[in-house]
């Protein structure tokens, strides 16, 4: 009897492998063709000189050497990207979670309403242009008008072109738009948590909501926190502000993604742009691995 049972279990396992591969096949085929193949192509191109008219020619590490040692604008873009990512990434991520957590306590109607309010910037993509009116450089700009009336400033400030202010303004606009899919997944994740754990923990002697958050909510939300983190890392490093002008004054808000698209779509230096994208990818991977380590400590 025993061998027969193991055999049937093995066939069952094999059958479930087969069904699992079948379930994944449409995704896998499209993923390989339209995502992985282009990424591999881009990595190969980063070792070539390619102007999109002639065939690519192999140049070894030349693109990377030029990128890291000869391109001053790249260094500015790198600095700006790191500043923007390190400020807006964590702020946007933590705010998304905190607000989702607070919203979760509300009744059904209020919850839908506030989720909608917080998500509107992401929902109404066109609204981002309105910041240009708000921060307009002349006295017609909304902010300038208010500050002039209050007597805080005597001359209108060119918020978007003055390197003293425009990076901060990009940060504000980025945080404004950072309640995206990560936030929505937190809201629905918190909704789907098993409440019996909370009860058990309360009986076991949790003293306050902070302990509940740390000992019960975080561990249960682990998968959602990871999802939100990937979203945050990928968007925080991909900020490409054009509201401050492209190129901005002295490249004051120039970022890596703007640098990449500049070389790829305007100068047709595909090889060089690909090298820049590979370096950006390495940065993002480092940030992602770091975030993952941090999260596994918090939600252990």
């Amino acid at each position, binding site marked *: 009897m025993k061998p027969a049972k193991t055999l049937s279990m093995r066939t069952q396992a094999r059958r479930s492998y087969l069904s699992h591969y079948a379930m994944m096949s449409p995704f896998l085929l499209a*993923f390989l063709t339209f995502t992985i193949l282009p990424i591999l192509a881009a990595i190969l191109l980063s070792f070539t000189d390619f102007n999109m008219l002639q065939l690519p020619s192999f140049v070894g590490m030349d693109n990377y050497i030029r990128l890291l040692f000869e391109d001053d604008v790249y260094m500015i873009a790198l600095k700006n990207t790191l500043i923007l990512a390190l400020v807006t990434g964590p702020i946007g991520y933590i705010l998304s979670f905190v607000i989702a957590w607070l919203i979760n306590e509300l009744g059904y109607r209020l919850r839908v309403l506030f989720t909608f309010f917080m998500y509107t910037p992401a929902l109404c993509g*066109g609204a981002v242009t*309105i*910041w240009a009116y708000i921060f307009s450089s002349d006295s017609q700009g909304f902010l300038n008008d208010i500050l002039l009336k209050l007597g805080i400033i005597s001359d209108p400030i060119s918020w978007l072109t003055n390197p003293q202010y425009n990076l901060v303004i990009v940060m504000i606009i980025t945080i*404004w738009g950072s309640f995206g899919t990560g936030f929505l997944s937190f809201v629905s994740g918190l909704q789907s948590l098993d409440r019996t754990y909370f009860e058990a923990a309360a009986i076991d002697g949790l003293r306050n909501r902070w302990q509940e958050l740390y000992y019960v909510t975080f561990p249960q939300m682990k*998968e959602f926190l990871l999802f939100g983190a990937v979203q945050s890392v990928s968007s925080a490093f991909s900020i490409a502000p054009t509201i401050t002008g492209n190129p901005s004054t002295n490249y004051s808000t120039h970022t890596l993604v703007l640098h990449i698209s500049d070389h790829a779509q305007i100068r047709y230096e595909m090889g060089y742009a690909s090298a820049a*994208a590979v370096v950006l990818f390495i940065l993002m991977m480092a940030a992602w691995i770091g975030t993952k380590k941090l999260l596994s400590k918090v939600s252990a």
Partner: protein
Amino acid sequence: MSAIVSKVKLWIETIRVNNSRVILSRSKAGTFFIGFFISLMSLFMLLPVIYSVVQAFKPIDEIFAYPPKFFVQHPTLDNFKMVLRLAGNLWVPFSRYLFNSLLISVVGTFITVFISSLSAYPLAKGKFPGRAAISSAIVVAMLFNGNVTTMPRYLIIAGLGMVDTYFAILLPALANTMGVFLMRQFVVSSIPDSTLEAARIDGAGEFKIFFRIVMPSIKAAWMTLIIFAFQGFWNSTYGNYIYSEELKQLPSVLSSIAAGGIARAGAGSAVAVIMMLLPIIVFLISQSSITETMSHSGLK
């Protein structure tokens, strides 16, 4: 099988019942602070969006008025009439663009949600070889910048003879990495292995488990993915892939209506409002209907 279904039903029901009460209490000051904080954040999120909606109802002299006013003095529908008038003079009827956009958005969203869920289940719960590699490849793909993969991807799509057909839009939609990752995280954290084991012992196949147990349990995740996917399809022009005028989407014609400098500033605001209408409706419907199915029937 029916025993399993009723078990899952009971389990979802327990979540619902327990969800409706808060176990640890909170001080009055805490409640007040939370209300205050969420309202303040909502205001910050909403004001730019409200401003951009108000802009659309302003006559042209008010859009450029000095000093700028937040609210409209003499509301008018002129901007919308201008869009309608310009839309009436097109070579391809306006309704055609609207139909194309609706078709692509609905079909594309359906494909994205279905395929993402289908591939997320084996990725989360399967034990087949290559599972971990696929999961990491998905994260890698999410972190690689799109600017340099556009060109190789175009070559692949052209090589497959799909340029200027809807296949160029819909086939890559089979591989929505963010969607698969989101669904995977939901399946991992919301479906206990014991439920799946019990179903297997009852003789349920993997596809049956997927349709009867997995799909109903991740409805909360659909809400996030439906709105995300719909927005993506609705707002894209696919200018690289679609050349025939009669196959083009709404944004391509609306952006050409809005382009035209100062004289079309009003039309531009109206176009932004028109484009945000449908995503808002989809958001509110999906958000409320899915919360409802979660709490009332649980499983179909």
